[in-house]
């Protein structure tokens, strides 16, 4: 791998940028791998990267049915934070946030992580109690969290309409939260994993599993059969489809979640502002577009497009909170299929099939966890036993009852 640096940039500019190496190879699948990762989103690619980098396992393939990052990784609103209520969540999301902080250096790829600060607005007494409880819990876990008055909110976002239909009564701020460039996360992990020998195989769909004596021995794909000692499935909205191929069910429902971006404008908003109650969350990308997250449709769907009324329910509150945006034009709108659990916490787990692991259930809010999730999932696959940070997120918590209810921290606000 040619390292990216100011010098390589200068050297290549002399040749009009004609000689850049491809960022990753495009190999044909081998007959056998130590580990096959199904799903080339951020979480799957990160898993492969940490398997090679930290676990000494580089005979790994990432098998993606489309192109890498074309799933929810390339469709999300890129919000990164670690301010969840429970200790288990603090464990995994803060592990991720710490990795985000050095990720560009680690991967030698600019993922444009921007800890620009993230506000959760409170619009009623209940919201104030929720941020009070959660804010204090977060602080007890040693994670940054501050309470703001409406006047302080106004200082950060001068054009906000505090006296709107549901007036802003306060806010919770995570200064280290922010955004990152979603595509770059997929590409950066892919390039760094490829450099350590991981095969990234695109346009290859997993259509079934080879299972002998209740132990997985490989995958059947659209490009033939591939043997594997261990299989990790990281396919987000399609996890139930893969579980069905393996003969078990998951406590998950798949629903569309939408987002939209505006025409680009000059810098106006330099933090992320989220509001669960009125459902408006917004940030400004480095290109200048407003990035707006909409809600999810409340019925199962794999259609990758949401209902029209959801968009209306999103832009309404945005305009109420920020009247200055009322005449902005929206350029693009899309949907992704998210894998939702009832406790709004992810599933990292062993399964009823030996040597088969699942990492899913990140639902509406898994982008922020990408590095941490890949890291602990890689260690879990390598040891054959779940990493302590991943352990509480087993699918069997829905049998034991040890749910991790992040409804308030995660359900609407991603």
């Amino acid at each position, binding site marked *: 791998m040619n390292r990216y640096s100011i010098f390589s940039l200068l050297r290549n500019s002399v040749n009009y940028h004609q000689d850049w190496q491809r960022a990753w190879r495009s190999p044909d699948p081998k007959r056998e791998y130590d580990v096959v990762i199904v799903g080339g989103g951020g979480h799957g690619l990160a898993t492969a990267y940490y398997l090679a980098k930290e676990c000494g396992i580089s005979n790994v393939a990432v098998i993606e049915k489309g192109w890498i990052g074309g799933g929810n990784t390339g469709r999300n609103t890129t919000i990164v934070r670690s301010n969840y209520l429970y200790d288990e969540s603090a464990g995994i999301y803060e592990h991720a946030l710490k990795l985000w902080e050095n990720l560009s250096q680690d991967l030698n790829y600019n993922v444009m992580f921007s800890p620009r600060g993230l506000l959760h607005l409170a619009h009623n007494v209940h919201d104030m109690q929720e941020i009070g409880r959660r804010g204090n819990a977060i602080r007890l876990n040693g994670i940054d969290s501050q309470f703001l008055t409406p006047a302080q909110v106004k200082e950060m976002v001068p054009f906000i309409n505090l006296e709107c239909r549901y007036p802003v009564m306060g806010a919770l701020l995570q200064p280290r939260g922010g955004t990152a460039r979603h595509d770059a996360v997929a590409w950066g992990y892919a390039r760094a994993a490829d450099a350590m020998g991981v095969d990234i195989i695109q346009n290859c769909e997993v259509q079934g599993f080879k299972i002998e004596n209740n132990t997985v021995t490989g995958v059947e794909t659209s490009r033939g059969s591939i043997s594997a000692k261990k299989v990790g499935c990281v396919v987000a909205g399609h996890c139930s*489809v893969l579980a069905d191929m393996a003969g078990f069910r998951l406590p998950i429902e798949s629903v569309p979640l939408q987002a939209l971006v505006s025409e680009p404008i000059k810098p106006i908003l330099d933090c992320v502002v989220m509001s669960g109650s009125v459902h408006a969350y917004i940030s400004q990308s480095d290109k200048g577009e407003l990035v707006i997250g909409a809600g999810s449709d409340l019925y199962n769907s794999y259609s990758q497009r949401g209902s029209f009324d959801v968009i209306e329910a999103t832009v309404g509150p945005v305009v109420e909170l920020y009247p200055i945006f009322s005449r902005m034009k929206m350029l693009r709108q899309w949907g992704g299929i998210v894998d939702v659990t009832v406790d709004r916490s992810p599933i990292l787990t062993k399964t009823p099939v030996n040597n088969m692991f699942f990492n899913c259930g990140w639902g509406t809010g898994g982008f922020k966890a990408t590095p941490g999730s890949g890291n602990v999932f890689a260690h879990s696959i390598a040891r054959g036993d779940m990493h302590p940070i991943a352990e509480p997120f087993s699918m069997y918590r829905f049998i034991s009852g040890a749910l991790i209810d992040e409804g308030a921290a995660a359900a609407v606000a991603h």
Partner: protein
Amino acid sequence: MLLIECPWCGLRDQTEFHCHGEAHITRPLDPDSLSDEEWGSYVFFRNNPKGLHYERWEHSHGCRRWFNAARDTVTDHVYATYKPGVAKPEIES
């Protein structure tokens, strides 16, 4: 999926309805005898298919009655809606 046929009110806009997930899940007849695994599976585990799905809907902004629907989760096409208690229709999908 813009229009859904309520078995009582006829074709109405989707925004009048709420979906309540997988249909035809039988409530355990003898709850005391259930193992944790059976309870977990009854309460939380779902089929979540890509394709034909039998599910419960409520006409929440209309007659407020519940009914079942057979819908394709890829195209959002509603094959049929039917009253509770009626056996699920066989659909060629």
